[in-house]
């Protein structure tokens, strides 16, 4: 068996890291789009739609991401499709991300003062005009830090897709460990790479939040 240098290990891990990054980006953007739907369902003035949105959020926040991955993987197979792991992984992560982002954003919309609704209504605006011109612009400012913060959870969430066979950083870690018998070194490096991906996002979220608080206190 060939000897692996630390450089070989790192190179293999970094090659797999690109799939972690791609999957994270796809899940975050896709989850954001679906999350918008969840948000509008959650704050709709139709009762059944609110209930539907709430059920969706409860379901995805109340069950393990790993189970959602399994269900996506085997559920898609029920339709007779031979499912590639990336498809099941992407689908499950998008739906999971959507539940959390939708819920985060709902909190931000509801944090906009009630007076803003009343003031815009008194100006004769309809629901969608209120949303577009008054509520969402304000909610957006508040939403950015926790949204960036949640992206960390998405990156970490992609690690679970290794379990259904998607080849990304964690999977590569396992493969390389099996080849090198150096679990301490390999998983240490894997952790370090995840840290390098996640920590800047965490910091950005904290800094944005601090800026927002400072801006608020000037009001």
């Amino acid at each position, binding site marked *: 068996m060939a000897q692996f240098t630390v450089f070989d290990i790192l190179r293999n891990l970094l090659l797999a890291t690109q799939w972690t990054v791609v999957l994270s980006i796809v899940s975050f953007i896709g989850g954001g789009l679906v999350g918008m739907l969840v948000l509008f369902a959650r704050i709709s003035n139709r009762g059944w739609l609110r209930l539907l949105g709430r059920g969706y959020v409860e379901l995805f926040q109340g*069950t*393990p991401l*790993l189970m959602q991955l399994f*269900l996506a993987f085997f559920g898609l197979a029920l339709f007779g499709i031979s499912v590639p792991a990336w498809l099941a992984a992407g689908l499950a992560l998008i739906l999971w991300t959507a539940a959390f982002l939708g819920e985060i954003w709902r909190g931000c919309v509801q944090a906009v003062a009630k007076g803003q609704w009343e003031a815009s209504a008194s100006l004769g605006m309809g629901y969608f005009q209120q949303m577009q011109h008054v509520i969402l612009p304000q909610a957006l400012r508040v939403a950015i830090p926790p949204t960036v913060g949640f992206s960390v959870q998405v990156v970490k969430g992609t*690690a679970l897709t290794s379990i259904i066979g998607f080849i990304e950083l964690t999977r590569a870690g396992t493969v390389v460990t099996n080849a090198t018998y150096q*679990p*301490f070194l390999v998983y*240490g490096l894997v952790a370090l790479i995840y840290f390098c991906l996640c920590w800047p996002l965490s910091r950005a979220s904290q800094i944005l939040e601090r800026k927002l608080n400072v801006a608020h206190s000037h009001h």
Partner: protein
Amino acid sequence: MQYQWNFDWLANYMPVFVNGVAITIELILVGAVLGVCLGIVCAWVRALGPVWLKPFVAAYVELIRNTPFLIQLFFIFFGLPSLGMKLTALQAANIAMVVNLGAYSCEIIRAGIQATPRGQFEAGASLAMTPLQTFRHVVLVPALQRIWPALASQIVIVMLGSSVVSQIAVEDLTFASNFVQSRNFRAFETYLVATLTYLALAIALRKVLDGVGWVIFPRRKV
């Protein structure tokens, strides 16, 4: 496409599921109790502790919060033995969950401590209590009460996250469903049952934690 649902196998495999649920509950029980204790100690260090200790706790918290739980678990189970620490899978899972929740709860509890009015510290001091006595008897309980909902949410998240311990062969609920679906060839139904069981566990755990809150925090306002 016509899919024939089939749950006939469920009765046969019930004991397997029950056993899995028991392990999952054991994991979160140990994880929650010890994890929150660790979180309290770390939160004390970060909010009020000696300056030289703070960077260590900060590093621990950042490291845990910015890496996947699965990797933490692998590192502990596969990595530590190469340093001579032999662990059973269950021990590794317990440690991983305590360490993971410890970091998250540290940040949550710290926020609760930092929201303590200064007058509470001064009242403790003026009654001749040491800083540690003031923390333990005056500051801690109201601080926990302030952040209890957030802490409860985090404990539920950690419980759901525990499903990956099946990857190191801890026989939890996920492990049980993996086992069952390999026998009955009914993967979708099996994971559906497991998923709904997790949902029920999450709801029940939330209720239990709310109940614990009612017992240890006698007053609503802090």
